């Protein structure tokens, strides 16, 4: 099963005629053979990825013509909020936005809009989703992952790769890996993904990688305590981060006492999460917990 995406997903790429969009769309197509089209307003009727897929003027057109149920967005920041809303309005079931730098006020509007449509939205400012051997919807390097039964949820890109790398080194594959993004407003929270992994028959355990700022990890930990039978292994990056400084991600800033790495780890441990102290111990801890 895996979650969110699999070999039957039909993916369109918004911004496929841009250099970044084109590059990653080609990688996704090569990985899962399930990119079915692209969207660039004004370029409908053309083709992209060396003639491999058609380009449409709108998401609605693309969906009608291809039956797409997933949209991957590489549109530049000034137009990205609109692109997300367009995908949601067209009835696309899963929207993944990679774009970094969308104004926060626009994301507040996007969040309210998407909630009304019933679409699921991941990101923005995230590496996307990878279900090993089935589908890649984003920019995660496919070759580092292998199929298996550990779910991975993370706020960050390369730290996700590090975790996946450690899992593979221990012989543990992944069911689905999701980068949810490091912005203050994101489409899908850690808690919502834990819910999906708990219900997924092909996932046995979940690695949850958070960071300083916000309270999403705590909300997820509470959920795990009350509703999960599967073990959750958690790490929080940023224990050495000074308060009040934004550490790269717009959301990674300690603005209250509960947002520090130490406070989050303590609360997570109290909820029964297997908290990893060293970022080098993620893989080993999963082995120990699942033994």
């Amino acid at each position, binding site marked *: 099963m895996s979650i969110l995406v699999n070999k039957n997903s039909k993916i369109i790429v918004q911004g496929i005629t841009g250099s970044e969009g084109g590059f990653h769309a080609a990688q996704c197509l090569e990985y899962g053979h399930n990119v079915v089209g692209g969207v660039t307003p004004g370029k409908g009727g053309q083709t992209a990825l060396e003639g491999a897929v058609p380009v449409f003027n709108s998401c609605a057109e693309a969906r009608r013509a291809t039956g797409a149920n997933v949209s991957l967005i590489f549109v530049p*920041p*000034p137009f990205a909020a609109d692109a997300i809303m367009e995908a949601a309005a067209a009835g696309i079931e899963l929207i993944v936005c990679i774009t970094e*730098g*969308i*104004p*926060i*006020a*626009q*994301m*507040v*509007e996007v*969040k*309210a809009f998407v909630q009304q449509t019933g679409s699921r939205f991941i990101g923005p400012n995230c*590496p996307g989703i990878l279900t090993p051997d089935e589908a890649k919807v984003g*920019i*995660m*390097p496919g*070759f*580092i992952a292998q199929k298996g039964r550990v779910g991975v949820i*993370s*706020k*960050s*890109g*390369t*730290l*996700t*790769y*590090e975790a996946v*790398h450690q899992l593979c080194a221990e012989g543990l594959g992944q069911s689905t890996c999701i980068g949810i993004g*490091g912005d*203050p*407003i994101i489409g899908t929270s850690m808690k919502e993904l834990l819910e999906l992994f708990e219900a997924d028959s092909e996932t046995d355990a979940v690695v949850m*990688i958070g*960071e*300083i700022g*916000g*309270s*999403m990890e705590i*909300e997820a930990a509470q959920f795990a305590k009350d509703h999960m039978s599967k073990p959750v292994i958690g*790490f929080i*990056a*940023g*224990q*050495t*981060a*000074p308060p*009040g*400084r934004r*550490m*790269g*991600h*717009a*959301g*990674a800033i300690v603005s*209250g*006492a509960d947002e520090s790495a130490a406070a989050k780890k303590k609360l997570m441990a109290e909820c029964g999460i297997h908290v990893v*102290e*060293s*970022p*080098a111990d993620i893989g080993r801890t999963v082995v120990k917990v699942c033994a």
Partner: protein
Amino acid sequence: MKIHEYQAMQLLKRYGVAIPAGITIDDPSQADAALDQLHAECAAEQFVIKAQVHAGGRGKGGGVKFSPDRASALANIETILGMTLVTHQTGAEGRLVKKVMVAQALDIKQELYAAITLDRTQSMDVFMVSTEGGMEIEEVARTSPEKIVREAIHPGFGLRLFQARALAQALGLEGTAAKQAVAMFQKLYKLYQELDCSIVEINPLIVTGQGDLVALDSKINLDDNALYLHPDLAAMRDLEEEDPAEVDAGKYDLNYIKLDGTVGCMVNGAGLAMATMDIIKQVGGSPANFLDVGGGANVETVKNGFRIILSDPNVKAVLINIFGGIVRCDRIANGIIEAVKDLDLNVPVVVRLAGTNADIAKELLANSGVAIISADSFEDAANKVVKAAQG
């Protein structure tokens, strides 16, 4: 982006929010004229002199002085302009005061608090008020959270009139002050929304002896992602308030934050960069910086990254931790080799490369003849660099 108090006051004025009369100067020679002008404008006899730096806690640090007459105002301007102000937010080295705001002193009957910011848990903006003005709101939130009253603002509908009334009521305001509060709160939200602020904070919001509501001090931060929409606001950035190395890094799309340890770090990705700092600390070292070289790292960014890390004299060793996804490790390796050759490095460099083309990269480094300590894993790298830093 942070802006100064005097700039925030200009924005409040633009939106019709009542503020005290004030003039900002950067040289004591302008003091007399400023005091004359304030006297002419509003018959001010008493003044407040306020240091303009991007840090809170100015009052406790001696950067805000009430001046009951002209002579003391002149003396306080003389003292504060050019002082090195140390507050809990500036660090021990403090901040040089280059500008002061000379403001009319008002008769304060009551000090309140008002702010608008994003509530991440609800994904909505929230308007907060408290009767505990003049204090740090974090302290109020900790000791008496019931004294902070919130109204969530739906993005589709904005701050509604009934919500503004409820906020005024929560502050216990009546009559003229209540009416002024409702109008002011709507103006503050308009400002917050139209200018893409990440926070608008009025602390204290005062009721004067005459019963009028005035924004006595304010803090406005702007959403960096939205600055492209507001070139006039982007121009308010004061680079002198920022760390020169951090400003320099920004020019090359590097995200650098200076810390006070001895192990320099260069990493791709914010999460992995934080985790790298964490593991350095866990194996007994201390990180000298946060540096995210981003997704488009190439020879130039690596070279500039090195230069910026090494501009910190505390750095005793450098750790490069790259997990190649889109970034190809062989490109990073070439950057490292060039940088080491060009920059005349005199500190040990530990390199850990994983992911795309890591094998090619390792071979490039091994055959380059440059003195680099190679590490196989994340943990191995941290141990090696901390040992190297301890020399």
